[in-house]
């Protein structure tokens, strides 16, 4: 039977699932919108997996809801997005030295040397220059986000747009549009502004060297890709599974975690239909009044987090116990 590894990346905007085989080939990649309901989205993704006679041998989770996903699925490894993205890229593009990643709410740059992360940066609190902003502008201009990049590519003379702040960028765009600039020029200008903003903030002072890989949902936008190529003067590689690279990394890490015959903690595919209950309460044990989140399956509490002191931590339940329970 085929041994498969499941990687799950639950971000603020998208939830991605990847099924990878023993040879690190991606068998299936799912890109789903999280839409504020990570638990349901994970279950929805799980029900869409096609094992084709294979068996899930290991599970890895990443993304901002990685702990939630790990509790629900029974993960063998839980890793931050930076490590997951770096692992995925260096497997798919050997020798990669720079990873540009732009997702829905965050953007990051990862510098690798000799296959090891040597530097990284993430955007700060502001979501300017991330996928959400492009989504919002596409909505305002009534174009499909999928067409955004191709329309931008037809531009002959991109207009200059302030990319420092999305509020200013929007008013700049409206101003240019009212002056009569064409849609492709405005979109291409926005692509350039976003890239400028990215390189000035996240990429500030970073030693960007080829090969450069561009991944994350925004890598689908060919306009942004061209703007990066022009700004850096380097070829930009967009890997085949660019939108689910975090999940690919999680799957690879899962494979490593169970190597040596460790049994997986995976709860099984029927998790898709289990009734998980997420609830929260305020602990009144001390003046900190921590908000505790609790994930339950029927009568069992699977995980709790949010407490500063650790008194609500749930003892880890071994996979054998959960199966018999």
């Amino acid at each position, binding site marked *: 039977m085929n041994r498969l590894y499941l990687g799950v990346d639950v971000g603020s905007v998208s939830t991605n699932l990847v099924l990878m085989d023993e040879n690190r080939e991606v068998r299936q990649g799912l890109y789903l919108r999280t839409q504020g309901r990570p638990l349901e989205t994970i279950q929805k993704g799980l029900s869409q997996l096609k094992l084709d006679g294979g068996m899930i041998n290991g599970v890895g989770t990443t993304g901002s809801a990685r702990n939630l996903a790990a509790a629900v699925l029974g993960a063998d490894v839980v890793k*931050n997005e930076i490590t997951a993205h770096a692992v995925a890229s260096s497997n798919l593009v050997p020798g990669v030295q720079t990873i540009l990643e732009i997702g829905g709410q965050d953007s990051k740059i990862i510098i690798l040397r000799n296959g090891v*992360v*040597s530097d990284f940066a*993430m955007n700060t609190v502001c979501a300017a220059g991330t996928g959400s902003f492009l989504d919002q502008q596409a909505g305002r201009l009534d174009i499909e986000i999928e067409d955004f990049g191709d329309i931008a590519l037809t531009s002959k003379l991109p207009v200059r747009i302030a990319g420092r702040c999305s509020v200013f960028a929007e008013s700049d765009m409206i101003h240019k549009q009212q002056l009569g600039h064409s849609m492709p020029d405005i979109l291409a200008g926005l692509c350039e502004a976003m890239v400028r903003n990215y390189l000035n903030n996240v990429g500030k002072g970073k030693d960007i060297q080829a090969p450069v890989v561009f991944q994350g949902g925004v890598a689908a936008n060919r306009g942004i890709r061209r703007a990066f190529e022009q700004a850096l003067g380097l070829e930009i590689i967009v890997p085949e599974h660019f939108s689910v690279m975090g999940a690919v990394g999680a799957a690879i890490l899962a494979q490593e975690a169970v190597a040596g015959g460790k049994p997986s903690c995976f709860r099984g595919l029927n998790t898709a239909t289990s009734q998980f209950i997420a609830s929260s309460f305020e602990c009144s044990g001390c*003046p900190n009044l921590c908000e505790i989140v609790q994930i339950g399956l029927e009568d069992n509490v699977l995980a709790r987090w949010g407490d*500063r002191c650790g008194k609500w931590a749930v003892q880890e339940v071994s996979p054998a116990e959960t199966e018999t329970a």
Partner: protein
Amino acid sequence: MRIGVPRGLLFFYYYPLWEAFFRTLGVELVVSAPTSRPLFNRGVVLASDETCLPVKVFFGHIESLREKQVDYVFLPRMVSMEKRTYLCPKLLGFPEVVTSVITDLPPVLTANFNLRKNPKELDKALHELGKQLGYNARRIQQAVEAAREAQARFEDLLLGGQEFDLAVKGRSAERNTAEVALRIGVLGHAYMLYDRFTSLDIKGKLSKFGTEIITAETVDSGEIDHYMEQLPKKMFWSHSKRILGAAYSFIDDPRVHGLVHLSCFGCGPDSMIADMVERACRRRGKPFMVLTLDEHTGEAGLVTRLEAYVDMLRRRVEVENNISAHG
């Protein structure tokens, strides 16, 4: 007599001095409780929007002293604590700022500490405090000596790597000297780093990842001066001077694998220091990360960055070890 002391800002630098001074005089000190969510929230509401996070938190501490039946609230005006340096401007006008914001406060006990030109000003300021409380000069002098001694012991303990919570009580304890795989130099103001709530317990989080943390307080002042002399211009903020000097020393120290700067949103001196440290780290290929905290900072983003940073250091060390083993 009971004197209230807010557990914030200069508390993290000079509490042993104050404690020994007032105890020797026979005054009872009442310290506000460690920062908690309600106290934090109150401080954010009270303080000006323009100021930095630790100052906001400090307002919460001061206000909490109102309910403690104290005769005075102690708010020293520490202008300069060593030759030719100043403390942060935000701290200099504190007694006035506070009394204009929180009106029904017990009387404020204050004195000017300005040692910029003359270190003897310390004794003078303490005598002034004692006199305000009605003690005679001989008694005050005893307290001054006890205070100096306690402060020196505290600084020595920190220098030796003692945990702040123990050092502030003057307690020494055997430190675990086992060799660790990863050592991280954590930079930042003491009132951020050692306030568990405000710093989101960054030190505890790093320890949980199996790393050893060293802070600027473990670097002796001679070494700091050595690095400061190489700057084209004098660093005239005392805390920034210590942080920057320690950073340069960590960069030179092969036993320190990386640096993390815990800064707070709205800190003027930090914005400059962080950049200087970053440049120096880049030149020397030392991993460096700035974490800027403010009142809205969520734990999740912080944990992600710390975890990724520690992962990175660990992999780098593994690779270096592999190379040296074969080379």
